[in-house]
């Protein structure tokens, strides 16, 4: 929009010379064809089901990673939910470093925030309980709503393909 207006503004200038005005491209680069896609490599890169499917398969072969009612007609708060989700994913990646196997699924049910994580078995169960209790309490106090953490452990990352 701003670029179009600027371009129009420039065209409205008196004609100075042959092609003296050059329009500026001011939108940020939005590489839609490269988003959330794992590029094909040598064949040794382990790729999970979640990672292997590009975003146009959401709703067809993939589910959503974050479930809330903010995007329904007449509901508000979608932007706040998006910011909360971003913070939660970074927080969990930092609290369980190297142990998270797949992306975290966030579900909001009324006031409750249910965080479903898939963890590897690198840490002993006592430490996982410690981190779980810590994360639940801290997030509850931070967002002023009950937060329930559901941990599920796997022996290793489950490969879907090797790319």
């Amino acid at each position, binding site marked *: 929009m701003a670029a179009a207006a600027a371009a129009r503004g420039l065209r409205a200038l008196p004609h100075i010379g042959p092609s003296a005005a050059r329009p500026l491209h001011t939108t940020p680069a939005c590489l839609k064809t490269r988003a959330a896609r794992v590029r094909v490599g040598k064949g040794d890169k382990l790729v999970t089901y979640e990672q292997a499917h590009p975003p146009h398969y959401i709703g067809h072969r993939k589910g959503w990673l974050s479930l809330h009612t903010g995007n329904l007609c007449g509901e508000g708060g979608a932007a706040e939910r998006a910011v909360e989700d971003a913070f939660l994913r970074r927080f969990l990646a930092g609290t369980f470093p190297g142990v998270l196997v797949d992306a975290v699924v966030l579900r909001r049910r009324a006031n409750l925030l249910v965080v479903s994580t898939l963890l590897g078995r690198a840490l002993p169960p006592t430490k996982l309980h410690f981190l779980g209790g810590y994360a639940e309490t801290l997030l*509850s106090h931070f967002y002023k709503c009950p937060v329930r953490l559901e941990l599920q452990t796997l022996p290793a990352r489950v490969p879907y393909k090797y790319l």
Partner: protein
Amino acid sequence: MAAWRVRGGSWQRVVWLSRRCCSPGGRREGCRYSSSSTALGKTVDNSEVTQEEIVLPRKKTWDKLAVLQTLASTVKRDPTAAHYMFYDDPFLMPRNAATSRLFALSKESGRNAAKYIIKHFPQYFDKTLADPNVLCLMPETLTPQIEGLSEEALKERIHLRKVKDSVNLFDQLLQAGTPVSLETTNSLLDLLCFYGDQESTLEKEEEEEKEDLEEPEVNASEQKAPRRRFQRGSQLSDSGWRENNNAERIFKIMPERNAHSYCTMIRGMVKHRAPAKAYDMYIDLLNERHKADVHTFNALIGAVPYLKERFFERWELAKVFLNHMVQQEVQPNLLTFNALLKTLRRCGGVGRSMSLLVVKEMEALDIEPSLATYDHLLYIFYRGADLGQSNIISEVLDDVEKRSFSPQDPDDANFFATAMQVCCDLKDIKLAYQLNKAMEKGDNWKFLDVDRLNAYWSKFFSLLCMMEQIDVVLKWYKEMSPSLFYPTPKNILDLLQALDAANHLEVIPSVWEDVKQLGFNKRQDLLEEVLSLMSREQHPEEIQLAFAKCAEDIKAVHEPSGREVPLQWTGSALGRVALLFSRAGRTQDAWNMMERFQQINRIPTDQVMDGFLNCAKQTNCPDEAIKLVKLAAALSLPSAARLKSRTEKEFELSEKQKKTLESIKSDGDSSDSDSESSDSDSDRD
């Protein structure tokens, strides 16, 4: 039917009126149109206007949790799930009592870590995102707001429980000459007596941090540091009521004291283990002609066992206090009687005779006994030296199973454990069932926390194994473990004995699976018991195979694997494992076991040798038989000759094998014959 035809015209109106009656009540029963009921309103035929008022029932108000409670009542307990506080994942589920306690504590310490961060960085957590605001999720403000020397500042510090700061402020106020009111001084005394002149736990944490930061400092901090380290771990960390501590000092310099001051001091002294001083303070209170309140009397009655030694004197002193209560017109409450019974616990025979009178007094005063009362009663009657002939337990259980209790005394929590212990001592299973029913009634289950729950069910299971039929035992076992309680090793031993008594030894492999899951597969006593039961007699084929699999697991425990130190073989264990392998027809495995006897310097029993020989015969391995005879000869067993003759008779041996067999015997005799020949040679020479 006739009535309906009579009122044909008013049919519509009757239906409408009856519908109006039905809907507010919400009742779904069909409206009855009999002519006898006049509550349904007017009829056209009836000329008299009946002023019937339609009685709308009152609106029912439901509890906030009613829907959840109803939903919860439709779901039964899942016998395979662990406690709700653990995550539902096989890696994260606790396997036995020790790990369940460990995981619960680690989760709690994670919560404490989060609370620490919230306390120290409140600026990140004070945005009010929720509307209405959730107060319990906001950070607490624990720093005093009011500064300066004033009584308000002192009151605020007392409210925030800062012991040292409030004492300092009080001293500063006195030095400045400002009089502090009696109420504020009393509340300061309350604070000091409650904490016993130590800091509250929050203050202690902060002081410890400061101490750690200032480690390389003056000698004073060095002297304090070891004391702090000792205090950090233990909860009962207070060193008692020190002589002339802050509370006493402030008490002495108070210009005027009222009854409350004396009472607080008495209660503080009793709490922090200075009962003699408390008694002196009480005498002072009487001299000043003040009246003590009921809490003070409770504390004093509770301190009686520390004031007097002999049973009779204790009871007399308690009676003195009770008489004073009557004189000062102080109404006793439940805690008074509980304190009295607690004192009677330590009064031996006097206790037994007096406790029932105490309970009757309670009933006369219309005070409902709490679980602590019953706990003290059971202790008095059943835990003394002689198991009394009284029948009080059944009366107690009859009372307890009628009502749902709420916590009123800190000692309430011990009731169920004590009662179950009494049932076990009396070996009465019906009482135990009654106690179980009492526990499930209403809110009574809340008195058992995770530790006590485990102990309670563990004792109950032991009693079951002793007294009940095996199928009942197995039913309870499947239902209760591992969701309600984790069996202790003693429980497993009791279960094995019950199986043995009922001759149900084929269940042992599944019990062994549970033992492996519980992590008890390295305990010598359990292993010995399992092996002896399995190897005692011959069993049908498939059971024998299952036993052999268990034996293989037991063998794996003794092998070095990974980082764990392997268990040492004992002679009996090795022999039994070999026997089990041989009975299942696994000759090679059995021979591997036999070879180890020499390594551990033990001798196999005759039963083992015979069993191995039988196995070799069944699987037709004469080589193994010969190897066995060689081993017997090498270990110089008395049964070697017998084994050799058996081998010769029962096996079809080739020529080579017969020769080897002969040579073994001659090896055994050759030394004798050599010595004989050498003797005879020497004789000849």
